[in-house]
């Protein structure tokens, strides 16, 4: 917490007199202030020579603290916000949509877990193509050079009735592909920089009141977040762990405040009993809102998807899909 003397430039009430008064009670930072008994502090201020100014100083500090917490919402406001803002985006794959209750939900962090080559990147690419076709923007963070615009063009062509490649279709494809922006990301700090920049851009857009949904990003995909976090986890100190949790927090904050649906992919590692379990450990388990497990039948084109965790569906429910590998 900030030391009190750093606040003196912006808030003239917290001058050196006030700081000396606080120091006499062993209060040097905002943290000490919050831990102190405020009634006792008020009483002690009343006994001072310039008690009015000191009391104003204490009120000022309390105001600063109050201004920092997010607004308190009641249930009715939450339901209205959900109806108005928290849409559902179809992934393009009926099996997955059925499991998710319609698709990727805005405000939620959805995680796809699965062994290598089980279809996680395919789901990400298919979701990008479906969302872009519905005139919304996608930001795709790619850590493994797996973003394939050819595959997305294939998905777009597959689910529409166009067979010929004439000028109009060409332009249509261009419009759709222009809504998907891919960022190659190769380390976790780079991802943080990008997400921060996104947050700042989105915050400034709120005041500009942009109506065109084309420019407002609606879906954010990180493929895969586990390859960014595995190199820093369990190293010297808890730093890697802290970064993992703050990245989850940042993604969820972006999802809720700016009405984005976030999709991340994770891989599996061997568990203690030989069964594979999702990577990134126990603490990460509680971070995503929805977790889906993907697997692929040996060398066939059928993929199995099941729910590990969902706020509204029973876990264990599963579905199959044959669209991902053709």
């Amino acid at each position: 917490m900030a030391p009190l003397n750093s606040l003196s430039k912006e808030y003239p009430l917290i001058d050196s007199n006030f700081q000396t008064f606080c120091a006499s009670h062993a209060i040097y930072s905002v943290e000490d202030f919050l831990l102190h008994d405020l009634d006792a502090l008020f009483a002690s201020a009343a006994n001072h020579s310039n008690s009015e100014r000191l009391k104003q100083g204490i009120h000022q500090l309390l105001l600063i603290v109050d201004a920092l917490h997010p607004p308190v919402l009641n249930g009715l406001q939450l339901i209205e916000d959900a109806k108005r803002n928290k849409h559902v985006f179809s992934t393009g794959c009926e099996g997955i949509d059925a499991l998710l209750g319609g698709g990727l939900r805005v405000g939620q962090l959805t995680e796809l877990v699965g062994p290598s080559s089980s279809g996680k990147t395919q789901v990400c690419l298919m979701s990008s193509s479906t969302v872009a076709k519905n005139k919304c923007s996608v930001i795709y963070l790619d850590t493994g050079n797996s973003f394939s615009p050819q595959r997305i063009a294939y998905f777009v062509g597959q689910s529409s009735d166009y067979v010929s490649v004439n000028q109009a279709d060409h332009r249509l494809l261009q419009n759709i592909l222009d809504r998907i922006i891919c960022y190659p990301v190769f380390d976790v700090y780079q991802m943080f920089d990008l997400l921060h920049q996104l947050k700042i851009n989105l915050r400034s857009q709120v005041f500009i009141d942009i109506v065109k949904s084309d420019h407002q990003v609606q879906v954010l995909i990180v493929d895969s977040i586990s390859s960014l976090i595995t190199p820093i986890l369990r190293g010297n100190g808890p730093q890697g762990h802290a970064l993992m949790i703050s990245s989850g927090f940042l993604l969820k904050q972006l999802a809720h405040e700016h009405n984005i649906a976030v999709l991340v992919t994770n891989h599996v590692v061997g568990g203690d009993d030989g069964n594979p379990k999702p990577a990134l450990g126990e603490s990460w388990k509680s971070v995503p809102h929805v977790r889906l497990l993907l697997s692929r039948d040996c060398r066939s084109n059928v993929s199995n998807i099941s729910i590990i965790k969902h706020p509204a569906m029973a876990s264990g429910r599963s579905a199959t899909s044959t669209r991902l590998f053709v």
Partner: protein
Amino acid sequence: MEIGMLPISASKRGKLLAAGYTTLHSILRTSTTHLARDIEVSESEALEILNFATRSSDLDKSSGSNANVIHGGQTAWDMLNEERFSSLITTSCLDLDNILGGGINCKEVTEIGGVPGIGKTQIGIQLAVNVQIPLDYGGLGGKAIYIDTEGSFMVERVLQIAEACIEDLSEYSHHFYKDNQAFGVKMHPNSILENIFYFRVCSYTEQIALVNYLDKFVTEHKDVKIIIIDSVTFHFRQDFDDMALRTRLLGEMSLKLMKLAKNFSLAVVMLNQVTTKHIEGSFQLTLALGDSWSHSCTNRIILYWNDDERHAYIDKSPSLKSASAPYSVTSRGIRNSTSSSKRIKMV
């Protein structure tokens, strides 16, 4: 926890927090001398921290009318158009090239794994030669980096393959330019050998140091178009007590290789060994280094024996269909399989 996102050491971070600097804003408000005095570091270190913080907060100021554009990204449409001109490195085996969509892709990391003796090193050497095929003949005209961890690189074999490649190219040019005798291939096997940069690593630390150094090396040698690592697993399989350390090191190495491939538009080919894995009650062959490593490549090709014939199977790819194709290892290098019943199987 904005301090946590600055790339500074953990001890400096701890000192900043203890002195009460928890947000970037609080760091920016002080001067270098104050910061140095508060957290007890030298002035130059304090200046470094201030620079990091200023750079991070400069993002605050980038809000113009085009505020929705963040640097570093490309739209899918631009990438699709770029891909049309993307470079492919042929493997000299037509069937294999077909299932790969033309050859090994630049800008991607491809992992090739198989049992010992199946021809991994042979494919590596063939690719190191094929990347040098001149632009006139449909090649890339680039150079190759060969990182050898096992010592299986035989220069005589490279010479053999290089000579065969030049012979094939002259035959090709002879077919197309039958009248013009002057269209001889102006390549000599020695020049092919000259364009392969060979590194021999003997421990995992050397391997990691080399991957870190490659960034500088490729900046100086901009015509390198392929990096072959043979084999990437050798030094990590034995004598590694700390599995967590191994996972971290491998994860970091794979991210660096991905970055090299993307930034310099070159192909990275990693050759890997196999191990057995217990899946669903039976033992199956999978590539070594565990589950976390299986995500460190863009494409994966598994080589296996099928009744005396060598086959290659695409195990993982974002855009290619799963298929397998036969190939053979001849004295001239990797070539099409000559068995009469060969056909490409779509799986």
